[in-house]
């Protein structure tokens, strides 16, 4: 995990440095607007230590991080730690709700499709899954707002507040993932249902319900769970757009805004937190494998 975090932050650091544009100029632009003078740009370069070589800057940043100090935003002067801790819960809430929606819709649609194979229900479900994967987030978001906020007036169109504010952004973000999960769940369950032990179970005279839910489901869940974990990264990616459209004060928006202004203290903070988050999620996915399939045992390999 340490390797992941160091790798990710180092990469972000290097990429931001390699990206065209003078960081000092962009920061000065964000701070002082259009009335820039070359003197002011040089001042920013010196006070923010941008004149040091890249490795020196990275090591200095890492040193601060080890002491629990993420620094302050270069454009607004706010503490990076407090900004991130403000936004992280909002994004976490959104991501959790989206995954919940995705699992709920995706798994159940997959099960229905697999058990009702080649019926009309299956076709509808598969078609909507393709639509769901193909639909761009921002477009779906606007369609949902049009329907639920403007036409029906049921849900607020933007902002953060009680649970009603969460529904539309989570639905937008969850749909794509739900569609993907449904497809994977279907094919996985179809495959499992064709196996010998399922035939045995059926031969014992078990009800279809018991066959699917008690015997087949647990084995069929491994691929969707893997994908759900892997998709978490894409969820954060989608959060950037969804957060902007719904005015959701999350990490994605913060990261994008910081990239525009080359606020590398803030970018590094966001990357650090995101990398840690992804590492933890991957760990959780691994643990869930062991629960789903007891044959998978993690142990140190012996020479």
């Amino acid at each position: 995990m340490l390797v992941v975090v160091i790798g990710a932050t180092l990469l972000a650091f290097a990429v931001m440095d390699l990206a065209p544009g003078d960081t000092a100029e962009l920061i000065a632009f964000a701070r002082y607007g259009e009335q820039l003078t070359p003197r002011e740009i040089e001042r920013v370069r010196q006070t923010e230590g941008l004149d040091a070589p890249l490795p020196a800057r990275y090591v200095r940043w890492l040193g601060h991080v080890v002491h629990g100090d993420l620094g302050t935003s270069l454009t607004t002067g706010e503490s990076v730690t407090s900004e991130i801790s403000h936004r992280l819960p909002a994004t976490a809430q959104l991501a959790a709700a989206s995954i919940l929606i995705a699992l709920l819709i995706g798994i159940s649609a997959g099960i229905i499709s697999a058990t009702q194979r080649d019926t009309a229900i299956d076709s509808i479900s598969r078609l909507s899954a393709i639509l769901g994967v193909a639909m761009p987030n921002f477009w779906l978001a606007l369609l949902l707002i049009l329907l639920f906020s403007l036409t029906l007036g049921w849900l607020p169109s933007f902002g953060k507040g009680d649970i009603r504010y969460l529904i539309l952004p989570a639905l937008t973000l969850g749909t794509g993932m739900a569609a993907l999960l449904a497809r994977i769940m279907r094919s996985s369950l179809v495959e499992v249902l064709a196996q010998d032990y399922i035939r045995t179970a059926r031969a014992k005279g078990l009800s279809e319900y018991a066959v699917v839910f008690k015997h087949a489901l647990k084995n069929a869940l491994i691929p969707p769970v893997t994908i759900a974990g892997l998709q978490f990264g894409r969820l954060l990616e989608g959060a950037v757009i969804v957060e902007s459209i719904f005015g959701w004060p999350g990490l994605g928006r913060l990261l994008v805004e910081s990239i525009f202004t080359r606020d590398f203290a803030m970018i590094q903070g966001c990357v650090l937190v995101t990398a840690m988050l992804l590492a933890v999620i991957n760990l959780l996915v691994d643990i869930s494998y062991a629960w789903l399939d007891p044959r998978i045992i993690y142990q140190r390999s012996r020479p």
Partner: protein
Amino acid sequence: MCGKCDKRFRWVVTAAIILATGITIFGCGKQSPPRQPVAQELSVGISTDVDNWYLDRFPDGDARFVWSQVYETLVRLTPDLKIKPRLATSWESADEGQTWTFHLRKNVRFHDGTLFNAQAVAFSYSPTSYAIRTILQAAERVETVDEYTVRFILSRPMALPYYLTHIGWPIMSPSCIEGQGKFIRPIGTGPFRFHTQDSDQQVVLVRNNHYWGPRPQLSRVTFKIIPDATARVIALEAGDVDMIVKVPGPEVARLEEHPDISVHRGMSTFTDFIQFNCERPPFSDLYVRQAVAHAIDTEELVATVLEDIGKPAYGRPYSPIMLYANPNLNLPAHDIDKAKALLAEAGWTDANGDGLNERDGEPLTATLLVTTNPNVGAGGRFISLAEAIQEQLRQVGIQVMIQLLEGGAFLNAEREGNFDMLLRTGHYVWGSYPRHFFIHHSQNPYSHIKNAELDRLIDHADATVDAQQQCDLYHHLQQMTVDLLPAFYLVHQEKIVATTARVGGYELSAEPPWLNLHGVYIKPAP
């Protein structure tokens, strides 16, 4: 038999529960008890949060709309962009603009009750303030003559009152900061005072009950942060906000048809322009620049690309609403044959008949830079403009390659002179003072022309205080820009604010930042 009954019954109950929960959850949104009398509370959708409240930095993005409710300047601009007293009641310069004395309004109190006086002015223009560090570098010191008189000592003459209309460097109370100089909270003299801020969600202001002018009618103003322009429009239509700024052009026609929404449109001081790189071929040649000016049809740009939002500029650097806008400019007419003739004069002709001009076998190509940074460029609007210009220039045999670049890459290409043309907006302008031309001053890092005569005239106009002389100089500068073509001016922008029917008393003013909520009120429900 009975088992099946049971099952069905369970289904019915489940469905009923789901339905009931749905109605409870969603139904809540619909019930809003009629308020009597109507609460004077306004919510405004803006695109960015207020990242900074203090004078050491610039109010970036839409922060200026919020600042202009909380803070005030010494001098203000009238809706037709003439200067007028605000916190200063009068001013004079004894020596043709090198020292300026301002007489301050008495009995004005800051939001925390402290008195507005000369010390507050000196504090607001102290060396930490970014105004003094950037645009007002010429201000050597600010002296407090007595309680209600301040004097600015400048290193060179300049028309200081114009500069002091900028909401980006307003008057703040010294009580904004604590002993060590750390900023605590925004304290101004404006009609509304700061209440709370939820980062990236909303900023709440409440009425300043001790405002020195007429009492503001609204008791509370909430600025909601909605970054996406389309989402902002929908929020207005859904009634989630009462007012939105910066309405996207393609939505205007639809909103104007809407029975419950009023659209306020007015000319702004911003003008989009193509800046030429006059330091390398092909645009180092004035004939080629002139050919572009004759080839571009700004009327068509406004009518077809911008859906009639904004006014064609025909090359005019000043929007007609601006002070000192020259009504008698000699402008390049849209004339394709003239453009081709000019190019031929410069040696560019279509020898091989492929529709594109060549000289010595080299085709006439040019890059057009467009930034994708939403804070600098105008986003999709700029891209559509660039594509239309590409087509118009192809008609006279110039092949344009559009380059879309992210903000940093754009600045980089610009600094290295690695471009032929770039699209810019009149970003470098505030009010009517000469910074509009300063973009073409060779000292400006973003200028791409070196012309000693232009520099001299810009400096001269900036140092001139007399109104008639200023007027003559700026008229002259406008014609000179049209003739010299460091840039070709395309479209005078419009600013667009939309409100719901319950908002009354709003008037769009030309005065930047044109969101004056002082006289706004909420109409009683019909």
